Each structure stands twice: as structure tokens, then as C-alpha cells.
């Protein structure tokens, strides 16, 4: 790992990356192209050129054995600010904004970027019934383009962790009553703007739920107030898949690891099978960024269709987070956030070869030092 040095942030692509040729390109929109080039224009994707041949012109890079995907999206994380994303004194803090503790230069983001995770939902933690507003950020690239949506979702929690301690509320009944009160107050004159927006459906909710009855309570709550709501964690959500589908609820699954019970690992497959939109998350830095691919791979092992797993890591996550127009696929006009892998990223032996954000190579295997503007990228070094 000592060789893998993250490249400095905020460097303009002076040499202008114009295209990436790889043996395989997975576009995120359901098609796999062999021997294709992703053409870039500035910080955006211009298109895909099929049947391309490696070119020796400046601005073109070639990975003959590479597997290109859109950059992965971590749909629930606390990167760079874990301790600062829960306000403990109150149980309902809808006006708190994760954006206010976003530190783009924190090493958590560089670590995520070099694992192929190019965007993350920076979210308030699960500790409050209403935790605050989550922001969708990119993990690397020019400072100006790091924030994709500063008000992406309103974080809520139906979990036991929000009822711990001696403050309102200590029971699940009390928690739901507190949420109901929060909505009612938010609708009043002078009430919380965030709650009011979320109650009107302008802002979707992302609700942590653990046990089945918490999933049920969240679903019921969404129906009662006509909310746009998605779940995060919810390890047994798959067992309520039909209901969640009916309510238009998506689920951010994971993080999974080797100790996750099979019953939970089966959840993404059951959800996807019922047509529920899914994404994956790491809760980073609580888990390493690699936990994102690991979670998806474990879900595949437990029955999730591999194509759906890749979509959940990219295009479906983008849709769930309300940023499908910006990221998650290699459609023309999308941000040029992509990863060149040594193989299919669902194969855990696969490693990233290069990570491109906003049309710029922000990390590359074997690069020994930060690349200066105009400086050629270091020659590829195979371990």
C-alpha cells in the first residue's frame, strides 16, 4: 500500500484527458461494451466509442485489460466527520446540515476515492429521530465541484440507538410520536424549514431502521404523511419487500462483512427481486471504503443478480440520492467520474487501476507522487 499515494486535490486537468480505452466498459445503463473508449470533454462524458483501438495521441489513456465502470457511490457515510454528525443534546435536529462539517481535504475522502468510490452521501448519524440534512459529495476532484447536492435527503432514525440515553424519547412509541410532532410543528408557521420541505415531498427522507417493527413503523409513517422515504441499513428489509415496493420505498443496504448473518445478506436479493430500488453503503469511516464492494459481492453470493449489484453501486444509488442526472452512468453529459478496474469490481480479487473524477485522474496505481498540472501521469506499474 505504501506505493499507493493519493494524488493531490484541486488540480486542473491541464493536459485534458480526452478518452479512456479499456478492454471492457460497463456503462451503468445495462450494457457491457468490449474494447471501447469512454470519450471525455472537459469534466463531462462525451460518449462511448465502440470497437475502438488504442490511440497514441495525447490525452488518451489505454488499459487493454481494464474494466471501466461509473464511479461507485456510497449511499450513507460519515466521512471526515464521524464525531460531528450527531447532535446529542436533542433528539430532533432537522435544521442541522451535514454540509457544515464537510471537509473535502480529509483523508477519509482520499481513501474512499482510491477504492473507486467517487461520491458519498455525507449523512447525519442514526442517533437522532430527525438528524438533519445529508449532502451528496464527491470524494475527489476540483474543490469547486465537490458538492453535488447540499440538501440531498433528510436523515431520520427509527432505530434503538436514537432512543438510548435519558432524553425524549425512550421507547419506539415515543419515537414515532416525536416524529409525528416534528412533522406537525414543521408544517406550522415558523416551523422547521427542512421538515416542512420533507413533509411536502420536496426533500426525501432517509430513515435508519433496524428491527422489522422499525421498518414497519417507518413504512407506516411514510404512508401516514405521504412522504418520499427510503430506508438505510434495515438488515431484514427483504422480508417486507412487497410492502416496501408498494410504498415506493428504496433501501440502502449494508454495510456487510464476513460476520453478517445470511438472513441479512439475502435482503438485497429479495428487495431487487420485488423491484425495490437498492443501493449500498459503508457508514465510513466506521467501515473501510472497500466495504462497499464487499457488501455488494456478499449480496451477490446470497442471490443478488450481479448486474443489479453493479447498478446498486452506481446508477441506482444515484437515482435514490436524487442525482441520476449527474452521476452513476456513462451517458453523454454525465460527470466524468469513472473507475478503471483490473476486472469486474464484484470480484474481490479486482483492484482499481485508476480513478477519474471530473475528467481528471485523481488516483492511479503506481503513481508515486502527486501529479502537478501538465505533468504526465507516471507510467503504469504492475505489482
Amino acid at each position, binding site marked *: 500500500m505504501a506505493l499507493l499515494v493519493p494524488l493531490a486535490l484541486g488540480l486542473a486537468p491541464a493536459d485534458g484527458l480526452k478518452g479512456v480505452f479499456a478492454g471492457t466498459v460497463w456503462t451503468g445503463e445495462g450494457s457491457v461494451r468490449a474494447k471501447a473508449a469512454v470519450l471525455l470533454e472537459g469534466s463531462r462524458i462525451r460518449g462511448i466509442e465502440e470497437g475502438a483501438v488504442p490511440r497514441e495521441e495525447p490525452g488518451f489513456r489505454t488499459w487493454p485489460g481494464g474494466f471501466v465502470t461509473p464511479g461507485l457511490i456510497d449511499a450513507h457515510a460519515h466521512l471526515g466527520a464521524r464525531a460531528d454528525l450527531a447532535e446529542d443534546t436533542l433528539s430532533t435536529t432537522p435544521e442541522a446540515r451535514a454540509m457544515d462539517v464537510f471537509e473535502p481535504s480529509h483523508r477519509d475522502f482520499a481513501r474512499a476515492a482510491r477504492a473507486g468510490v467517487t461520491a458519498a452521501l455525507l449523512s447525519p448519524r442514526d442517533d437522532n429521530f430527525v438528524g438533519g440534512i445529508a449532502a451528496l459529495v464527491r470524494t475527489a476532484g476540483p474543490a469547486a465541484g465537490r458538492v453535488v447536492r447540499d440538501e440531498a435527503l433528510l436523515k431520520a432514525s427509527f432505530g434503538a440507538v436514537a432512543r438510548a440515553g435519558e432524553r425524549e424519547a425512550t*421507547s*419506539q*412509541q*415515543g419515537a414515532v*410520536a416525536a416524529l409525528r410532532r416534528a412533522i406537525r410543528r414543521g408544517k406550522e408557521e415558523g416551523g422547521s424549514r427542512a421538515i416542512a420541505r420533507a413533509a411536502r415531498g420536496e426533500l426525501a427522507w432517509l430513515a435508519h431502521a433496524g428491527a422489522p*417493527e422499525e421498518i414497519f*413503523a417507518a413504512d*407506516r*409513517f411514510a404512508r401516514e404523511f405521504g412522504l418520499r422515504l427510503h430506508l438505510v441499513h434495515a438488515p431484514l428489509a427483504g422480508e417486507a419487500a412487497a410492502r416496501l415496493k408498494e410504498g415506493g420505498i428504496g433501501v440502502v443496504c449494508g454495510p456487510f462483512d464476513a460476520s453478517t448473518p445470511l438472513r441479512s445478506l439475502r435482503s438485497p436479493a429479495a428487495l431487487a427481486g420485488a423491484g425495490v430500488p437498492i443501493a449500498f453503503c459503508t457508514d465510513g469511516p466506521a467501515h473501510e471504503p472497500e466495504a462497499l464492494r464487499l457488501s455488494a459481492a456478499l449480496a451477490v453470493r446470497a442471490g443478488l443478480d450481479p448486474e443489479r449489484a453493479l447498478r446498486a453501486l452506481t446508477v441506482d444509488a444515484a437515482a435514490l440520492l436524487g442525482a441520476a442526472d449527474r452521476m452513476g452512468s456513462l451517458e453523454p453529459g454525465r460527470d466524468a467520474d469513472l473507475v478503471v478496474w483490473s476486472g469486474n469490481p464484484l470480484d474481490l480479487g479486482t483492484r482499481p487501476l485508476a480513478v477519474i473524477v471530473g475528467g481528471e485522474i485523481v488516483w492511479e496505481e503506481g503513481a508515486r507522487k502527486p501529479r502537478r498540472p501538465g505533468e504526465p501521469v507516471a507510467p503504469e506499474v504492475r505489482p
Partner: protein
Amino acid sequence: MIGALLALPVLGSGPAEETFTLRAREVHTVSGARLEDSSVGVRDGKISGVGRGAGGRVLEGGSLTPGLIDAASTAGIAGGSNEESSEVAPSLRVLDALDPKSRAMERLARAGVTTVYVSPGTRGVIGGLGAVVKTAGASLETRVVVPAAALKAAMGDDPSRGNIPIRFGTPTSFYFRRPTSRMGVVWLFRKAFFDAAAYRERGRSGDEDMEILLQVVDGKRRLRLTARRLNDIRTTLRLADELGLKVEIDGADEAHRCAEELAAREVAVVAGPIPTTPVRARFAEVDEPCLGNAALLAKAGVLLALTAGDRDGEEALPGQALFAMRYGLPFDAALRAVTLDAARILGVESRVGSIEEGKDADLVLWEAAPFASRPLAVLIDGRLVYDAASDPDAAAREGR
């Protein structure tokens, strides 16, 4: 574990509604005459005929009763039955915390209990809204009979137990608070209703807590109080007079000492559970509970139901009926107390509580006499939610 997995199809959602004919040597309709060697038909989730079957699958047993009703259960509440942060919380709803996959509910269904009133616990002076639900069914939604039922309140020691009087140490916890005495409990109860009256007088609106209290004042919502000791029961009656409230009581360990008064005032009582462990070990408020409590209440003409509270196994509701019978409650009264009269107290007698055409097909087929024998089959809304013949757990439990 394997047994539990195998048992899942037996309980849980189970098969869709079927057509059944249930035959028994004795059919206890509760609302009407007892039928000998008779049949009951079940179709589309309802009782389609009494004294005649409906074709379909035939189930046979010694006796048939309506599904049992526990009018003061604590089963299935997830995340704590009490909200500790507030003493007066009328707008809490127990339905928000009901576990759709509760094992306690599964055990109730297996014991023949098909409908329960579940309420917030007794730590709050005014704890919130209970719910009337079936113990099994296709989903929690379809199981709900009354989503927001009687408002739950408590007298006596329960709401103050655990609160710390300010004279001990530095107040660092929210348990340093009122009430810390019986008097304080009554004070908070009374204040809540005074606040509601003031809220109405000022023409305010939009406060759900106050609206719920006013529904109780206006007689549009039932009020259930836990009152165990005689002084708590008398206080409850006094508060009812003072504030103009219609009340019903559970806990009620000493209700037999004022049975005539309760009967005269038409205050319904949910009695039990009868203690089977040493009283002191249970932190009970009543030193020597009267085992004939239920019998004396019924004799005085009190509208009576029985509850097993949080008890399980042999202490479950059929066991409570047997205990009450052992200490003087006639069988017919015991059966009514766990079926039709319980339904009346909960205000759901139009749907459950007796074997009548058109009512929900909630039925228990017993091997021999009700309570004293084991349930062979339990139907809820026309679904066979428990079938002893296909329950491998039952065989193991009962040593067959």
C-alpha cells in the same frame, strides 16, 4: 431452532381464508344456547352458519368456543412498553411500536387468544393510546381491529416508581422528577384534564394531546386505568366523578373490596393475572391478593374480563380462567369474561366475542373442555393460524 423454522408456516401469515366446517361435541356460542354435537361453518373469513357447516375442510374436536380475548395485554410491543421521558403523553400510540413478527403474539394465538387490547405500560400517568389487534393474520394492517383504542392511564405506585426524589444527590438524570408519590400521580392526572379544559375554553386547536383528553371528557374515547390497591380504585372513582369521566379499571387486585360500588356505577374491571409466584418477588402492591377476586366481582354483577398480562404458558389466558374457576367463578362467567364481555369492554362486540353468523371467524377448537384441555385448532378471520396436528413444536412441548 429447526423446530422454530418449521413452525413458521403454521403461524405467521399462513394460508388464505378457506372454507371450514368445525364440529364439536359442545359448541359454546356464548351469546346463545350451548349446542350439543353441532357444527359451525366458516366462509370468507366470517362465521357463515351456527348449527350448520359450510362444507370445505372439516375439523373436529371436543368443544368449540369463540377466540379468546385478552383485554389488558402487553404482548408484541417493541422498543419498550413505556415512554420514560414524559409522564403525560396521550398521543403516544402503541400501534407505532407493535412488532409484526412478535413471538409473544404467536404464543397467544397458539393458546387460543385471538384478540388483544395492547396498551402502553403503566410508567406514564397518562401513557397513550392502546390498540385492539388480532394475534395473527396476513399482515399487521389486516390484524388491526381498532388502531387507536382506549387511552391508558395509571394510578398508584407504577408511574412514580423509578423517579428519584430530589433530596438524593445532584439531579443529573431525567428520573429526578415528579411524580414520586401517589399524591403526585393524581395531581398530574388531574392537571392534564384541567389543561385540556383550559385549552377548550381558550378556543385553541391543533394540540393532539389535548384533543385526545377532550375526546375522553366527551365520552368519545374510552379511558382505561390501572388501579391495583383499594385506595387507588377509590381515587379513580373519585376522579371520574370530579372530572366527569367514564372509566374502566385493570390491575384491580383489591376490586373485590368495593365490588358492589363498581357494579352500581357500571365500572368494568379487567382482573388478573392471578399471582402464581410469591407476591413479594413481583413487587406487587397488594400484600395478599384475593384469589377469589374475579368470582366476587362477577357475583356482584360487575362487567368482568380476565387478563393474563404478560404471563405465558400455563399462566396464559386459559390458565387464568381455570384459576378463577378454581376460586369460585362459574364456567359460563369465566368463558364470558374471556370472550364476549371482554369484547364489550373493548367496544368490539359487533365483530368478535361470540359464535354468531356474520361475526369474524375467530374460533378455538379444544380437545375436550375449554381451558382444561389443549387447543387443537385456532382460526382467526377464517384462517387456520394454529393446527396442533401439524405443529412439530407442540408434539415436543407436550411430549407426544
